[in-house]
């Protein structure tokens, strides 16, 4: 980092105090609105619902990702990695009908003052559901754009009053071999587990999704509640969550534990750090034709302006 001596800085480069403070207010407002958008756009700007499932009512338009073109609904809901329903990409869409998403309870425990449970209906009612269009980059070097519906994870976490001991947040998917037939085989260790550092979990971009394309999540996409961390590889965004725990220690997470040399705890999208078996420099956009070129992968999946500061000073080759 270049540190300038006072003598190097011209008077014209010094920000006026009023402008500086105004900018702070702006940044705060932007953060509160969920980064990037200060005002809610008109409802007409929402992505057209797919007409395939139950609509989520009263969705607020966050304006986030308005410049992105969502991947077609059939691909978003037909091309999934959700090993609980089989390891093929079309297995989840075919098999996930066995999952019952009502009633559904999420247990919140660990290093917090008021551990407890919360039901999915309560979650849908208590938190304003907003639409956010995010890029989703899979560790397998493909990506899509998904119009999610949900609310910031941080809003839920605060309700349970994490203590100062809470350094990490751990998540677990349901285990039920009847509802999730893929769990009859120990392809991975069940339950599927994921985790975030506390500041990552509280980041305004980190979303708990309840829907996509204006409707409740299809089962194959992780109904009724899943995590979405847009600057990390897709497998970090755990599906069908039943437990959230605050912890002092770094939690063990499924893919990291399965192959620690291939999948790190952080797993931030990074074109400069290859997976040991394939390059991460470029990615294929789902929905493009057979002869389409790959596209360069963006650092932090294009969300670097918002999240890079979380990792300042860290060696991202070591903490991949």
């Amino acid at each position: 980092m270049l540190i300038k001596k006072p003598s190097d800085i011209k008077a014209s480069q010094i920000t006026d105090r009023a402008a500086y403070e105004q900018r702070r207010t702006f940044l705060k407002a932007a953060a509160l609105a969920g980064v990037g958008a200060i005002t809610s756009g008109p409802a007409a700007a929402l992505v057209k619902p797919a007409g395939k499932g139950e609509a989520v009512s009263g969705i607020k338009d966050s304006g986030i990702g308005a410049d992105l073109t969502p991947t077609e609904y059939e691909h978003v809901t037909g091309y999934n990695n959700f090993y609980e329903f089989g390891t093929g990409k079309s297995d989840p869409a075919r098999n996930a009908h066995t999952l019952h998403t009502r009633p559904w309870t999420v247990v919140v425990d660990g290093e917090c003052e008021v551990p407890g449970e919360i039901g999915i209906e309560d979650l849908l009612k208590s938190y304003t559901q907003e639409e956010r269009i995010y890029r989703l980059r899979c560790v397998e070097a493909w990506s899509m754009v998904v119009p999610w519906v949900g609310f910031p994870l941080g809003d839920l976490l605060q309700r349970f009053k994490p203590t100062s001991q809470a350094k990490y947040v751990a998540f677990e998917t349901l285990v039920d071999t009847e509802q999730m037939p893929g769990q009859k085989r120990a392809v991975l260790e069940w339950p599927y587990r994921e985790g975030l550092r506390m500041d990552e979990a509280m980041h305004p971009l980190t979303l708990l999704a309840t829907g996509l394309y204006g409707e409740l999540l299809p089962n194959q996409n992780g109904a009724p509640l899943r995590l979405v961390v847009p600057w990390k590889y897709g497998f970090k965004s755990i599906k069908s969550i039943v437990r959230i725990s605050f912890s002092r220690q770094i939690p063990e997470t499924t893919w990291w534990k399965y192959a620690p040399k291939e999948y790190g705890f952080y797993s931030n999208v990074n074109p400069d750090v290859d997976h040991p078996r394939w390059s991460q420099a470029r990615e294929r956009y789902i929905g493009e034709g057979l002869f389409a070129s790959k596209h360069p992968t963006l650092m932090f999946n294009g969300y670097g302006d918002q999240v890079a500061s979380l990792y300042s000073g860290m060696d991202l080759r070591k903490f991949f």
Partner: protein
Amino acid sequence: MTTNSESWLRFVAKPAVFVACLVPFGLLVKGALDGDLGANPLEHVTHATGDWTLRLLLVTLAMTPLRQLTGSTAWIRLRRMLGLFTFFYATLHFLIWIWLDQELVWGNMVADIAKRPYVTVGFAAWLLLVPLAATSTRGMMRRLGRRWKSLHRAVYAVGVLGVLHYLWLVKADLLEPLIYAGILALLLAVRWRPHLLRLPVRPGRTINVR
């Protein structure tokens, strides 16, 4: 062989196998023309050509044990065609990688072959198939004589490398590559231990590698 079974082989069995071997290719071409290869078309064509290479390789390797089991030499008459179709799908698989996956960036390809073991063994398997395809004609068989047999034993190595290629590229679910590995192991085992299938041991030809 009677004239009847000879003409059955020539005019029914061989053309039928030929057409059957082209069906997966036809489906891929149709899918490409219709733009109907799914969400990730490149992945689809890569996996399909890879799968058919391995399947046809195993079918090719099954011909000798089938002759021993049934006593019919008709199987051996299909072997060259099956072997050449194996090479056809392997070459498609390789060309798709060069052209659509690596987008003709030669430096990246060389680097990938050097540093990624599953690419290394896949490339080696294809390379080994080249001389086998090139010497598959009757003329080459005659010219090479006994050496032809030794050369074509390389197909066993191709099988092992091909299965390793698959095993080393999957993320977590090893079931499918292990099924291929199991079938390959069986097909190789019966060549060295014919009694595993209770195959009749022919006098003077206990090991039949043709």
